[in-house]
């Protein structure tokens, strides 16, 4: 594995993640695993919950970095630690709320939402790799058209825009072809 024996500086890690380097994210994940999971475990969380919270925090960090919306003024670990703290606090509040609701009313599983997410995930997987990447860059990483064009090797931003439009249209039609639009109404 890359970076196995190599220590990276804070700036290097940040720059690599900003550039979408997944290996740098893996490096970061491994480096702070114990520190971050300990936060949750020592606050009445299980190891599974701790891992989940840490991964969610890293995803948030990744998204902030790649979208260019983050300027680091502290250590990366401090920043991720604060995200973990917030996420775990929210989770504890959610659990507490859920526990109180359970006392008052029977639990209703939101099977419709779960089913809907499954449908969309299946349709995304049916797209080609290029479309998948373009849509992910645009809707998840929030990259600019220029960045998408650069990453995908498109001639210019207009090509990137057209490609994004076509891919999105294809996905919408794919989903609609399989399921009625009414299925998505809340």
């Amino acid at each position, binding site marked *: 594995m890359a970076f196995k024996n190599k220590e990276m500086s804070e700036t290097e890690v940040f720059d690599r993640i900003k550039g979408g380097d*997944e290996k740098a*994210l*893996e490096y970061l*994940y*491994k480096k702070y*695993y*114990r520190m971050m*999971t*300990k936060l949750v*475990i020592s606050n009445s969380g299980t*190891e599974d919950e*701790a891992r989940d919270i840490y*991964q*969610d925090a*890293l*995803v948030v960090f*990744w998204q902030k970095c790649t979208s260019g919306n983050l300027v680091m003024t502290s250590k990366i670990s401090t920043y991720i630690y604060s995200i973990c703290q917030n996420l775990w606090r929210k989770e504890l509040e959610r659990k507490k709320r859920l526990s109180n609701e359970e006392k008052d009313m029977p639990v209703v599983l939101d099977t419709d939402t779960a089913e*809907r*997410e499954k449908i*969309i*995930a299946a*349709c*995304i*997987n049916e797209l080609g790799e290029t479309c998948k990447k373009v*849509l*992910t860059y645009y*809707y*998840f*990483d*929030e990259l600019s058209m220029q960045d998408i064009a650069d990453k995908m090797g498109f001639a210019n931003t207009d090509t990137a825009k057209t490609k994004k*439009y076509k891919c*999105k249209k294809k*996905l*919408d039609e794919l*989903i609609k072809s399989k399921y009625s*639009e*009414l299925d*998505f*109404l*809340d």
Partner: protein
Amino acid sequence: MTTEQDISLIEDYLANRLSDAEKEAFEVRLKTDKSFSEAYSFQQAVIKGIQNARIAELKAMLNQVPVGSSSISSTAIKAIVGVSITAVISTISYFVFVYPNSEEVKSSAIEEVLVPKAENQTEATEVVGATENKNISTQHETEPPSIQQNIAENKIEKRKKAANNEIKEGKVVEPKIEIFDPLAEDGQATEEPMLEDKPEEDVFTKSNTLKTEVQPKDRRHSFHYQIEGDQLKLYGPFEKELYEVLEFFSNDKRTAFLYYNRTYYSLAANSAIAELKPVMDPKLIQKLEQYRKNQ
């Protein structure tokens, strides 16, 4: 039919790219325009689906990264491994150096089981009755002595000396097969027929190896006893009445009784302080009475 402009507007709203005024107008339209509201729900679900798919992909990637357990530190793992290795080495060393004749011990143990019962009974009688059976002794003298056998022999020898018995030293004693257990008072003791079939002198030998100490002022133990090695401690008002300790030996096992206030009490050889319980078996009481009279 959703227009391209509507989709673009919905995307801008979801990405928080609209101004406050645009946002307000958007939310009013959501409430009034049903088809626009449907389009919004659809676009929101699709975009969320794209984001969730990427999150799932990243998390799946992170799950593949090997990380140590957070609950056990690497130092702790090293310590556990170290202790385990030491324990294994110690165990192997113990059996290699302390029990170099383990094979002999095993074979000896097997032979002990295979020895006919009648022969063992003869041997047992020989030990307690202080009569020699040269054939059996010779047979065992040819066998290589094991550590276990030596320890057992030493224990018996010490007891024999203390009891001033006439048993000769160095004699190999067959391990016990059947031992008289007077504590088995339920009337179904397997040793009971042996007592009836044999003369009592062949089964028992009596001596005074226990050193008795009375503890009259113990608040927690009013009528108790404790045997530690050759030390007998009696807890209770034993200084007021006379008491008598009767000891019997069958092979290497000592059986002791306390006679106090016209009642017999069993004295089991346990190191913990135990309550004195009277002997209830009439046959055993009769035998003990007989012994006391013959004293």
